[in-house]
C-alpha cells in the first residue's frame, strides 16, 4: 500500500514538474507552434471585436499582434480565442492561451490567488459619467441630487453610491437588470446621467438617439487598470509581454511612429538607437532578435497610434487619452527605459 502511495505521489510530482517546465517555456512553445494564441474579448468595441470580414480588431487585439510581430516578424501569426468573463482565467491556467489580452482588471486577489501574473497596465479604465448636454454640467461634482441610471448588482452601482456619499451629494439611483435597459432609460430621459466604465461609456453613447447631445464627464471615480495576463511561473515570458508594452510607450515618447520608423533607424539619439536595436543586445536578452521593437512599431505602431486607431480620435469611439496620456502630457503611461 505504502509503495503504491509513493509511486502515485511520485507520478503526480513528475506530472506537475512536467507541466511546470512546459509552462516555463512559453516562448519556446510559441516559436515551435509558429503561432501565438491570444485570449481576446470578441464583443467589446474598440478592444476586441471582429469586423464584418471576420478579422479581429481592437486595442487588446493589436497588443497580441505586437507580441507576434516581435517574435515572428509577422503580426498575423496570432490565433485569437474568444473568451467569456467566466472562462478567461481557466483558459490561461490550462494553457489554452499563451496570453490573456481581454480588458481584464488587475486586482490584488486575481494577482495573488489565480496563478497568473499581470504584465503591464495597457489601459487605465475607470467608472465615468455620461450626462445630457442640456443639463449644463461639466463635472461629476455638480451632480448633486441627480438621478443616475446604472446596471444592478455591479461594482459600478457600489462605486456610484460610495462616490456620492463621500462627496456629500444626494443620489437617486435608478437600477436596471441589463446595461441595455439602463442606456435606453437614460436615452428616454428617465435619468440625468448614466454610469459605467468609461471604455464602455463611449460605445454606449453611439447607441443613443442623438449622441452629440450627450457628453462624458472628465471624472473617473474608480480604478480599473486593464492589463494583459500570463501564467505565473514563466518570468521570461512575462518580461516579453511587459516589454512589448514598454517599447510601444517608449516609441511614442521618442516620436518613433509606424511611418518614420525606418528613418529613425539612422537617428543619433541613443535612446532610439537602443530601442530599435541599432545598439545593444536588448532583444536577445528577451529571447528575440535585437530588432524586436522595430518590428512592433513597423507593423502595429507606437502606443498612441494603436490607441488613436482603435479607441481614440481616429476611431468612432473617440475616447479621450485622459489617464492614458504619456506621463509627459499629464497621464500615467510611463515607458520604462530600454538600457
Amino acid at each position: 500500500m505504502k509503495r503504491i502511495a509513493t509511486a502515485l505521489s511520485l507520478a503526480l510530482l513528475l506530472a506537475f514538474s512536467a507541466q511546470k517546465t512546459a509552462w516555463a517555456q512559453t516562448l519556446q512553445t510559441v516559436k515551435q507552434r509558429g503561432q501565438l494564441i491570444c485570449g481576446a474579448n470578441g464583443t467589446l468595441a474598440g478592444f476586441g471585436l471582429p469586423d464584418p470580414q471576420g478579422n479581429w480588431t481592437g486595442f487588446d487585439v493589436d497588443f497580441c499582434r505586437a507580441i507576434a510581430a516581435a517574435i515572428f516578424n509577422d503580426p498575423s501569426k496570432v490565433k485569437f480565442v474568444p473568451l467569456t468573463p467566466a472562462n478567461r482565467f481557466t483558459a490561461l491556467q490550462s494553457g489554452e492561451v499563451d496570453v490573456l489580452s481581454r480588458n481584464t482588471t488587475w486586482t490584488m486577489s486575481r494577482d495573488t490567488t489565480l496563478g497568473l501574473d499581470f504584465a503591464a497596465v495597457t489601459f487605465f479604465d475607470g467608472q465615468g459619467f455620461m450626462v445630457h448636454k442640456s443639463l449644463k454640467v461639466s463635472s461629476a461634482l455638480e451632480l448633486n441630487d441627480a438621478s443616475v441610471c446604472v446596471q444592478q448588482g455591479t461594482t459600478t452601482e457600489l462605486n456610484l453610491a460610495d462616490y456620492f456619499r463621500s462627496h456629500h451629494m444626494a443620489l437617486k439611483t435608478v437600477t436596471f437588470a441589463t446595461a441595455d435597459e439602463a442606456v435606453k432609460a437614460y436615452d428616454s430621459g428617465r435619468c440625468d446621467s448614466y454610469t459605467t466604465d468609461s471604455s464602455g461609456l463611449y460605445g454606449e453613447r453611439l447607441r443613443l438617439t442623438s449622441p452629440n447631445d450627450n457628453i462624458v464627464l472628465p471624472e473617473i471615480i474608480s480604478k480599473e487598470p486593464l492589463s494583459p495576463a500570463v501564467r505565473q511561473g514563466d518570468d521570461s515570458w512575462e518580461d516579453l509581454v511587459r516589454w512589448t508594452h514598454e517599447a510601444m510607450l517608449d516609441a511614442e515618447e521618442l516620436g518613433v511612429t509606424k511611418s518614420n520608423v525606418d528613418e529613425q533607424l539612422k537617428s543619433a539619439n541613443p535612446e532610439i538607437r537602443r530601442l530599435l536595436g541599432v545598439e545593444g543586445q536588448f532583444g536577445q536578452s528577451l529571447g528575440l532578435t535585437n530588432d524586436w521593437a522595430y518590428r512592433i512599431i513597423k507593423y502595429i505602431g507606437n502606443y498612441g497610434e494603436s490607441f488613436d486607431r482603435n479607441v481614440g480620435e481616429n476611431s468612432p469611439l473617440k475616447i479621450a487619452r485622459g489617464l492614458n496620456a504619456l506621463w509627459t502630457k499629464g497621464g500615467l503611461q510611463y515607458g520604462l527605459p530600454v538600457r
Partner: protein
Amino acid sequence: MAAIADTPVLYVRTAPAEQLLPPPASSGLIGWLRANLFSSFGNTVLTLACAALILWAVPPLLRFLFIDAVWSGPDREVCLASPAHPEPGACWAFVRVWLSYFIYGFYPIPARWRVDVFFAALAFGIGWLAWLSAPRRDLGAVYVFIVLPVLSVVLLYGFPAIGLPAVPTNLWGGVLVTIVVATVGIVASLPIGILLALGRRSELPAVRWLAIGFIEFVRGVPLITVLFMASVMLPLFVPQQIEPDKLLRALIGVALFASAYMAEVVRGGLAAVPRGQYEAARALALTYWPMMGLVILPQALRVTLPNIVNTFIGLFKDTTLVFVIGIFDFLRTIEAARGDPKWATPVTATTGYAFAALFYFVFCYGMSRYARSVEARLSRSDRR
C-alpha cells in the same frame, strides 16, 4: 287504367325544385364568420380582443421592419433619425454589411465556398430523406448518415492532402456553427436515444441500470453545466498536448444531452404500444431486434413523432448556449456585431435580434410544418 296513367299526377314534380340559396346568415363570408369567430358570446369577445391585439401590434411592427426600414448604406449615419426620417426603422443595411460574418464567422474568406458546398450537400441530403416519395431513400440514408459526415469533416475542417487547407474550429462561427451543432445533435440523438430507451426497458439488469444511470444523470444537470464542465474543467485534467477541440467538446456535450431527452421521448412511445403487439411479434417467432425493428419501433416512433420534433426544435434553439464557452454561434455573432461602433445606433440591436428571430422562426416553423405533414400521412392508416 291507361287513362289514369296519362293523367298527369299533380302532386308529383316532373322537374327538380329550384335550389334555394342557404340563408345569408349561414353561408358565405358571413356564415363563416358566424360559425368560426362569433359563434357565442365568449368567442365574440375573444375574436374582438384578438383583432384589437393584431391591430395594436402588427402595424407598428410592419412599419418598423419594412416601411421605415433602411435597406442599404455605408455606415451608421443612414440609420440615425434625421429630419427626412424622424422615426428610423430597422437598420437592414447593418445586417447586409455583417451578413457574411453572421453566416461564416471567422471562416477564411477564400475557403468560404467549402461552407457553401456543405450547406448545399446538407440541404440535398435532408431533402432526399424528407421527401417521402423520393427515389432510393435507402441510398439517401446511407448518404446522410455515412457519406455526409465524412464529406462535412473533409470540407469544413479541411484535408491538406487533397488541397483543402485545414481550418481550425476556432474560426468557425455564425450560422455554420448553429447548423453543425444542431445537425450533429439531431442526427446523433435519435439513434442513441432509441438505444437508450430500449436499454432502459431491457430485461438485462446491467444494460438497464447503465441506461437509467446515464439518462437520469444527464437529465439532472442543465445543458449549460455540461458545456461548462466540458470547456472549463476538462482542460485542467488532461495534459495540454491532447486537449480535445473546443467545438468537438461542445458537440459531444450537446449530443449526449439531447440523447437523454430523446430516450425518454422514445420510451413514452414504446410504452404506448400495446402488449399484444409484443406478444404477437413473439408468436411469429421474431427475435428481439426484428421484433423491435419491424413491429414495435415503427408504431412507437409514429406515436412520438410530435414529441421528437419538439425535442429537435428545442435542441435547435438550445444551440445558442454554446456561447458560454466562447463559441460564436449565430446569435453570438449578432451580439458581437451590434457593438460595432461603426453601426451603433438606437435601432441596431433591435434589428439584429429581429433578424435572429426571423432565422430561428423559419427553421423551427419549417420543422414543425414538415412534422405535421408526416403525421397527417402516417395517420391515414388510423382512419381506415
